[in-house]
């Protein structure tokens, strides 16, 4: 009971035929609070036993790796326009690795907590601790992955989650006879450093002609990019840039048509 067979996905509604195995379900990471994290494992389409395990995390904070990583980016399936079914992503990363999509922290996607206050006081630390607990418990459920090479990947605010989870694993490994075989991390468009991220962002806006010279100069002179929360004056400059100067663009891809 509680083994991997209970988590096996037989077939998803509207799913095309595939040759790889899939599993999904919950791992309880805190029994007292009733926090459980949801995962979806799509094994490699080729020789999965010899392929590494790769965890993918999305950011937000608060966004789902099932929604983005699995369904839009690297997973084997994309959801069709009518949401009646799935179609194959021919560039899925599961041709090279076993992909484990983790919805973290509790409150993201299908992951839940029975203590509603958890949703109002979460953050980096709890996400890292709960994610480590998930990895440890998950490997107990899937012992064939215990010695497998592990990589942690993700994007955006997962620029925090990925290295923080890696650090938790390194610490865990110093106190166990059975270390997790962590080999590497990879992050994309990753939130990294408060000051340099903010400075680099307004510089990008200016260098890509998204904002005026005047707004750029005012942002640079008014905002203290070291601060976690900006002053009202700075916030109003950001609002002016976005509302009056950006126009109707997709900020996540400035040359793509926006989804209206």
């Amino acid at each position, binding site marked *: 009971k509680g083994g991997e067979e209970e988590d096996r996905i*037989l077939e998803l*509604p509207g799913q095309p035929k595939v040759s790889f195995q899939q599993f999904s379900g919950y791992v309880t990471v805190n029994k007292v609070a009733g926090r459980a994290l949801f995962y979806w494992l799509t094994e490699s389409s080729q020789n999965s036993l010899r392929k590494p395990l790769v965890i993918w995390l999305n950011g937000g904070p608060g966004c789902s790796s099932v929604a983005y990583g699995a369904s839009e980016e690297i997973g084997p399936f994309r959801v069709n326009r009518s949401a009646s079914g799935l179609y194959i992503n021919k560039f899925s*990363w599961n041709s090279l690795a076993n992909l484990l999509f983790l919805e973290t922290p509790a409150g993201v996607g299908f992951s839940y907590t029975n203590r509603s206050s958890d949703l109002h006081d979460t953050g980096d630390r709890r996400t890292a601790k709960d994610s480590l607990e998930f990895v440890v418990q998950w490997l107990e459920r899937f012992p064939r992955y215990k010695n497998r090479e592990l990589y942690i990947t993700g994007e955006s605010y997962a620029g925090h989650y990925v290295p923080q989870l890696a650090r938790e694993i390194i610490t865990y490994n110093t106190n166990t006879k059975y270390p997790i075989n962590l080999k590497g991390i990879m992050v*994309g*468009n990753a939130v990294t450093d408060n000051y*340099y991220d903010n400075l680099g962002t307004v*510089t990008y806006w200016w260098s890509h002609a998204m904002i005026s010279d005047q707004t750029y100069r005012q942002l640079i002179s008014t905002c203290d990019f070291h601060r976690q929360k900006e002053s009202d004056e700075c916030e109003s400059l950001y609002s002016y840039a976005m509302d009056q100067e950006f126009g109707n663009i997709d900020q996540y891809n400035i040359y793509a048509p926006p989804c209206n």
Partner: protein
Amino acid sequence: CTEKYAEIYYNRPDVQKALHANTTGIPYKWTACSEVLNRNWNDTDVSVLPIYRQLMANRIRVWVFSGDVDSVVPVTATRYALAQLKVATKIPWYPWYVKNQVGGWTEVYEGLTFATVRGAGHEVPLFKPRAALQLFKSFLSGSPLPKS
């Protein structure tokens, strides 16, 4: 717009049953992002660069990539941040290729590889799936991105 399709699909009871999801009756719909969590995020590291240093010291492979048409966490932000690590260059900046086209640019440092993905937005594998797959392949093999 694909997240809208996902929000319909993953709220279907038959999909949730197949995924063994929502077995406890979560009192809200599945959404791509949780606004409650986002608005109530209580602790955040000011910088993860110290963790990068720690990982590199432990010989953990570190790769950082950036789609260069994203204005939310743009390539300039990442470059400014990584510059603070002050790590030595092993392979100087060069264009990397995928299917005979420049996929982006890359520089290999001691313990860290940085790569851009040309024309990709925030979700790199969504906008440039072939280039992203090449990036992943090189990352897993621990070898630099192809020069041709």
